C-alpha cells in the first residue's frame, strides 16, 4: 500500500516539476468523421483567424443538448458580432451515430458537426464526461475549457469570445 502511495506522490511531483509555463495547448491531431462519413483530422479545425468553440456532446446527453440549444438561440448574434464558429463533435457510438445527422437537422442547428465514434478525440482531449466545451483563439490555442452545463453559462462564454476579439 505504501508503495502505491509513494508512486502516486512521485507522479504528482513529476507533474509539478514539469509545470513551468501557462498553457498554450492546441487541439490534438485525431481522425474523426464528417456527417458524410469521410475521414476528417481535427488539426484541420480552423476559422480564418477568428475564435472557435469546440463542443463534445452526444444525442443522449441532456445537458449537452440543452447547452447547444441555448447557444443555437443566440448563435446568429454571436457570429455577426465575433465571427465565431462552433464545431459540435458528437461522441455517439454506433448505437446512435446514424441518428446524429437527422437529430441535428431536426433541431435546425447551424454548427459544424463531426463524429468521434470510438472516442479517440475525447481520449486525446482527456475529457472525462460530456458536455465539454473549449474556446480557441485565432491561433488555434485553447484558452478556456469547461465541463458540465448550467442554464445561463453561455453568457459567460460569449464574454470570453468577445475578449479575444479585443
Amino acid at each position, binding site marked *: 500500500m505504501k508503495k502505491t502511495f509513494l508512486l502516486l506522490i512521485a507522479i504528482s511531483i513529476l*507533474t509539478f516539476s514539469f509545470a513551468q509555463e501557462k498553457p498554450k495547448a492546441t487541439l490534438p491531431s485525431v481522425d474523426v468523421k464528417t456527417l458524410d462519413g*469521410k475521414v476528417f483530422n481535427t488539426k484541420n479545425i480552423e476559422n480564418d483567424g477568428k475564435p472557435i468553440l469546440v463542443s463534445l456532446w452526444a444525442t*443522449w446527453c441532456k445537458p449537452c443538448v*440543452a447547452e447547444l440549444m441555448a447557444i443555437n438561440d443566440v448563435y446568429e448574434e454571436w457570429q455577426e458580432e465575433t465571427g465565431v464558429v462552433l464545431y459540435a463533435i458528437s461522441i455517439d457510438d454506433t*448505437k446512435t451515430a446514424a*441518428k446524429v445527422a437527422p437529430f441535428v437537422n431536426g433541431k435546425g442547428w447551424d454548427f459544424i458537426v463531426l463524429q468521434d465514434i470510438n472516442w479517440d478525440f475525447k481520449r486525446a482531449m*482527456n475529457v472525462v464526461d460530456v458536455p465539454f466545451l473549449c474556446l480557441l483563439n485565432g491561433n488555434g490555442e485553447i484558452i*478556456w*475549457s469547461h465541463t458540465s452545463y*448550467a442554464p445561463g453559462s453561455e453568457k459567460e462564454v460569449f464574454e470570453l469570445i468577445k475578449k479575444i476579439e479585443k
Partner: protein
Amino acid sequence: MNTLKLSISSCLSAFALLCLLLFSSSAFAQIKVGSGTISGDFSFNGMFYIPDSTIGARDVDSKVRANAWLNLNYTNGGFSAGARYEFYLFPLIDFQDIHYQGHGITNFFADYKNDFIQVTGGYFYEQFGQGLTLRSYEDRNLGIDNSLLGGRVKVTPYKGIQLKGIWGIERHNFNFDYIKRNDYVRGLDAEVALADMIPKLSEKGVTLTIGGSFVSKFEKAEDKMFDIYIDTAKYHAFYNGHAITDFTATDIPDVIKCQGLISSDKIPQNVASWATRLNFGIKGFRLEGEYASKVNDPNLSNDYIYKRGEALLMSASYSMKGLGVSASFLRADNMDFRSQRDATPAYAALTLNYIPAINRQYSYQLLGNYSYASQPNGQIGAQAQVNYQIPKKTKIGGRYGTDITVNYARFHDLQKTLVPLSDTIGTITATEGYTSKFFGFGKTLLYQDIGFDITRRFDKHWKLMLMYNYINYNMVLQGKPGTINGNHVGFELTYKINDIHALRLENQYLFIPKKNNLEEKEKGSWIYLLLEYSISPKWFITVSDQWHAGNKSKLHYPNAAVAFVHNTTRIALNFGKTRAGILCVGGVCRTVPASFGLGLSVTTTF
C-alpha cells in the same frame, strides 16, 4: 477491522493525490515541457456504504471504497505517449461484482503520426467500421476496457484511402499476466472514399464510402470436458445443441446427465470474422450499412455449437433543416465474439466486437431502468424516429420553435429450428445447433417502445418538455420472469430566474398494470421527482426521489447532491439510495446492486 483501516487509508491516499493534482492542475493546467505539452485527467469516485436491508443494500466488508484513475499524456508534434494508473484496490461494490479489482499501470502507449502513416505501440483502442467485427474501447462507468496490447499501423497512401492493421492481446479486467495468455487478435481494415476519387460523383453531390475488415483471433485449444444433459426421448440436447465429439452415458432414465468431451483437434484455434460496409449519401438522404460474418466459433455463450455467425446493421435517414427522419434495422445471430471461448457470457469482458442496441437511448430515470440490452447471439428488430421542429417565429412554433420527436422500436428473438444431435447415443459429431430464417422474427418480444416528446421554450425564462412512452420490456433481459408493460409520462420544466440562477423540475410516472407475472418486488408503478437549482456556472444542488408507490413495499430511493464546477474540475457530493437494477450504455449493460451511502466524486482534466 484491519481491512476497513486498510481500505480507508488506501482510499485516502488516492484522495490525497487527487488534491495535489487539483492544486497543480489549477495552477498550471496543460503543462508545457520543451516544445511538447503534458495533459491528462484524474478521477476519483469514493463511497461510504451504509447497509440497508429494506432496499437490499448489503453489508459490505469494507465500508469505504473508491475507484480512481490518472491519465498522463505527452504530445510533441506528431509524437505522443501516455500512461494510466488505475486504482481499484477497494473498488465500489458494483465494480467488485464485475471483477474489477487491483491497481497499477494499466495502460501505456507511444504513437507517431504524419499525413501518410500512424504507428502505435502499447495499448490502443480501435474500431473497424461500425464495430461488428472489432471494437476495443473503454467506458469507465460501465467498467469496460478491452484495449489491445500490441501494435497498430494506419496508412493513408492516397487521399480518400485509409488502411489499418492491428495485432494485440485483449485486456481482461485486472489480469495483466500476459505471458500466460494463449490468445491474440489480428485484423485488417480498408476504407475508400470513392466520391473523393471520382469527380463525377462529388460534382453531383454524392458521397460514397466503402470499406471492409477482417479480424482473426487465435486461441490455443485443449481437450475439454463438460456436463451435458440429454433428453433420451427426443435424443437432442436441452440447450440449442452441443458440439460433442464423444461421450458415454452411464444410465438411461428420461433425462441423463453425462460428461461430454470436445477433443482439441475439433476446436477451431483460429476464428475469423469479416465485414463489408457502405456509406452513401446524396443531398439530405443517407444510407449506411454493415454486414458481418463469423466462421464457426464454439464457445460458452453459444453452448459450443459450430454454426456460422452473422450480423446486419442498416440505417437510412433523410434530413433537411427542421426535419430528420431515420430508420434502422439490426439482426444479430451467433455474433458473440470474444478473445477466449470460455469467457463468462454475463460480463462484457474479453468481447472483441460491438453489436449495439439500436433503440432510442433515454436519459430519463424510469425509462433508463428498463433499457434494452443488446443480444449479440440472437436478436432482430428495427427502430424509426422522426425529429421535427415547428419553425421559429410562427404561431404554432412560437418565438424559439417547438421540437417534436416521435420514436418506435421493436426487438424479437430469432426464429430458430433446433438441429437434433443424432439418433444414436454414442459418437455424435459437431452440430450447427440450430438454423434460423434471415428475416424471421421469433415468438418472444424482447423490447418495444413507442413514444413522443415535445420541447418548447416559451420565453427567456420558461422551457417545458413533455413526453409519453409505452414500453414492453421483457424481464428475461435481466434473467427474471414477466414483462413490464408500462405507460410512461413525464415532464421537465426549466425556469431560468435570470442569467445565473435556474430551477429545473423533472417528474415521471411509470404505470405498470396490476395483472402481470412479475416478481413480487418488481410489481407496481413508479414515481420519480427531481428538483435542481443551479447557479451558473459553478454550483448545482439537486434533490430527487424514486418511489415504488405501486408496490407493497412503498420503498423510497431519495438522493441529495451538491456539485461544484470550476472550468474542467467537477467535485460532487451525494447522499442517498440507489436501486438495484441495470446500467446500460449503448445496449451494453451491467447489473448494479442496491446501495445506500455517502459518495464523493472528483474529476478533472488538465
